[in-house]
C-alpha cells in the first residue's frame, strides 16, 4: 500500500480496512464498495477520482462518517467509526470533519455568519467565541465583509468560499470536499483549487472527491476507484504518467 508519508509506525488519520458496502436493490446485490483498503495521513492532499457509479460517493460517505460500511473497519483519528450509532457519527462529523459540498449547501434563510457558526453551534461553543471563530474563518476565505449577506446575495464563488469557511471554522482534522468546483466556472474553480492548496500547505489534510481527472491532478496523491475497488493509488506524477 502506498502512502506519501511512509513512516509505518505513525498512525494514519484515516484507516479504511477491508471496507464493503452492499446495497440491496430489489433482488440484486450492489457492491458499491468491494473491499477497499486505504490509509491517509495527516497533512496529505488526496483526490479520490472515479466515474459516476464507481463507488466514490459511497466511500466519501463512509470517510465523512455520514454512513457506516456493511463490513470492514474504519478508524478515523484512532476511533472506530464503523460501528457507531447516528448521534455518535454526528459528533464525529461535527468535531473531526469539515465538509465542502458541490452545491455549497448553505442555509438560504441565514446570513453567512450564521451559516459558518452552524457547526460551532452544534459543538456547543458559546455565543461570543462562536462569533469570533466564524468571523476569523470568513476572514481566512476573504469574505468577512459579506458576513451579513444571505447566500442568494452572493456569487457562486463567494458562496463556495462561505462553505469553505464553514468547513474550516471548527478547526477539523480533515477537510472533505465533494466536487467543490462542480458548480463553478473555470476561473472561480481555479481560485477554489488554489485555496485548497494553500490550506494543505498550512498543514490541513484534504480529501477531494471528483469525477474529473484534471481536477484530481491538482492533488498530491490520487486514488482511482472503479467498480467499488481501488485500481490506482499513488502520487499525482505517477497518475499523470499512467494516463498518457
Amino acid at each position: 500500500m502506498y502512502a506519501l508519508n511512509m513512516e509505518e509506525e505513525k498512525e494514519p488519520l484515516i484507516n479504511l480496512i477491508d471496507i464493503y458496502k452492499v446495497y440491496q436493490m430489489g433482488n440484486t446485490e450492489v457492491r458499491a464498495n468491494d473491499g477497499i483498503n486505504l490509509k491517509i495521513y495527516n497533512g496529505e492532499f488526496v483526490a479520490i477520482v472515479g466515474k459516476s457509479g464507481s463507488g466514490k460517493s459511497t466511500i466519501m460517505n463512509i470517510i465523512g462518517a455520514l454512513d457506516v460500511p456493511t463490513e470492514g473497519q474504519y478508524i478515523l483519528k484512532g476511533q472506530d467509526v464503523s460501528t457507531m450509532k447516528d448521534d455518535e457519527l454526528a459528533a464525529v462529523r461535527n468535531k473531526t470533519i469539515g465538509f465542502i459540498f458541490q452545491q455549497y449547501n448553505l442555509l438560504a434563510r441565514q446570513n453567512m455568519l450564521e451559516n459558518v457558526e452552524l457547526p460551532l453551534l452544534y459543538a456547543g461553543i458559546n455565543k461570543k467565541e462562536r462569533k469570533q471563530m466564524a468571523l476569523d474563518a470568513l476572514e481566512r476565505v476573504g469574505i468577512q465583509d459579506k458576513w451579513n449577506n444571505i447566500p442568494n446575495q452572493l456569487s457562486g464563488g463567494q458562496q463556495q468560499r462561505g462553505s469553505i469557511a464553514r468547513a474550516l471554522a471548527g478547526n477539523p482534522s480533515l477537510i472533505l470536499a465533494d466536487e467543490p468546483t462542480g458548480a463553478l466556472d473555470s476561473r472561480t474553480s481555479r481560485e477554489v483549487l488554489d485555496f485548497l492548496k494553500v490550506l494543505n500547505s498550512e498543514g490541513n489534510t484534504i480529501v477531494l472527491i471528483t469525477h474529473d481527472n484534471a481536477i484530481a491532478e491538482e492533488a498530491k496523491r490520487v486514488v482511482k476507484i472503479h467498480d467499488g475497488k481501488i485500481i490506482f493509488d499513488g502520487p499525482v506524477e505517477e497518475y499523470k504518467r499512467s494516463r498518457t
Partner: protein
Amino acid sequence: MSIIQAFKLAGKSIISSKMRSFLTMLGMIIGVFSVITLVGLMNGVTNYVVSTFSDMGTNMITVSVTNTDTRVVDVDEVYEFVKENSSVFEAVTPQVTSNYTVKNGTTSESETVTGVGEDYMSINSLALASGRFIQYADIKNRYKGCVIGSFIVDEIFEGTVSVGETLKINGTVYTIIGILEEQADSEENSEDDCIYIPYSTAVRMSYSSNISSYAFAAADADYVDYGKELLDDFLYTTLKNEDLYTISTMAELLETVTEMTDMLSVILGGIASISLLVAGIGIMNIMLVSVVERTKEIGIRKSLGAKKRDIMWQFVIEAASISTIGGILGILLGWGTTRLLGNAFGLDATPTVGSIILAFGVSAGIGIGFGYMPANKAAKLNPIDALRSE
C-alpha cells in the same frame, strides 16, 4: 444546541412564512377562543342563576305534604310549631295554588291564583304599589279580597285599575285590596303574573279541606339545615310516614342548579375542545409539509453535526411556538368577546382562570404533542438522503 437557539430558529421560521404560520395559528386561535368564550359565558349564566336564586331567599324551606284521611297536617298546628321555634323560624305561609278563570267584564283569562298567609309578603320581599296585603283578619273571615301583580293589571284591566275595584275569580267576585309593584317588566309567568288571595278562601274554593304546601322562612340562612331537621321531626310525628312529605330548601335547589350549569359548562367546553384537536391536526399537517420542504436543510444540519435531539427540538419548538402564540391570541380574543357579549346580555361573564390556564396548557401541549411526530420524522432522516434531496 440550546433551547434559546431553538426558539430563535422557530421565530425565524415563523416570520419567514407569515401567511402560513398565521393560517396554522388560526385553528388554534379559534379553538382556544371558543373554549374561553363558551366557558366564560356559561359562567356568566351560572352567576346570573345563582344571584337570582339568592334574591329569592336562601333561607327558604318549602314543605309539601300529602294528607291522608286519618293523618292531617293542620294549619294551626303548623303556625303553633313555628311559634314554638321562633328562634329558628321567622315566618311561615301556606300556599294553595290553583288555576281559575279570572274575569273583568268581557275580559277573561286563565290565571294562577295562590292562596297565602299574611306573612307571604315579607317572606318573599314583595312591595306594594297601592293598597294593603292580605291580613290575618282576611284569613279569619275568609274575605274575598285579592292582591294582584302588574301583569294582571295589564292583562285584565288594560293597564289601569285601582284598589276597591273588583274582578271575578271562578265566578266569585273579589275586591282588589292591593296592587304589587312591578318587579320583572310585567311579563307573563314572571313574578308580576300573580293573584294572591287569603289561603282560607282558597282552600274553600278548591273544595279540599287541607293545605299541601308551606313555605317557611328561617331566621337566618345558617339555620336552614337545623330548621329542616325540626320540620322533619314535626312532620314525621304527624304523618308517621316519610313518603308523605318532602322538605326542600332553596340552598339545595341552588346546589342542583349550579351542578347542572357546571355540567353544561363542561359539555360546552368539551365540544369546543374538538376544535382544539382539529387545530392540533392542522399544526401536525403543516409541520409534516415543513419537514418535507426542509429535508435539505435537515441534511445540511445533520452533516454539520446536528444530533437527532437537536433536529427534534427545532421542530417541536416551532410547532409549540405556533400553537402557543395562537393560544395566547385566542385567550385575548376570547376574553374580549366574553366581556363584550356578557355586557350585551347583562351577564357578569368573565373567562375563568381555570379555562385560561387549561386553554393555554392544552394549546402548548397540542403543539408539543402534534409536533412530535413530524419532528421525529425529521430527526430520523438519513443525512445522505436528506442532502441529496432538492
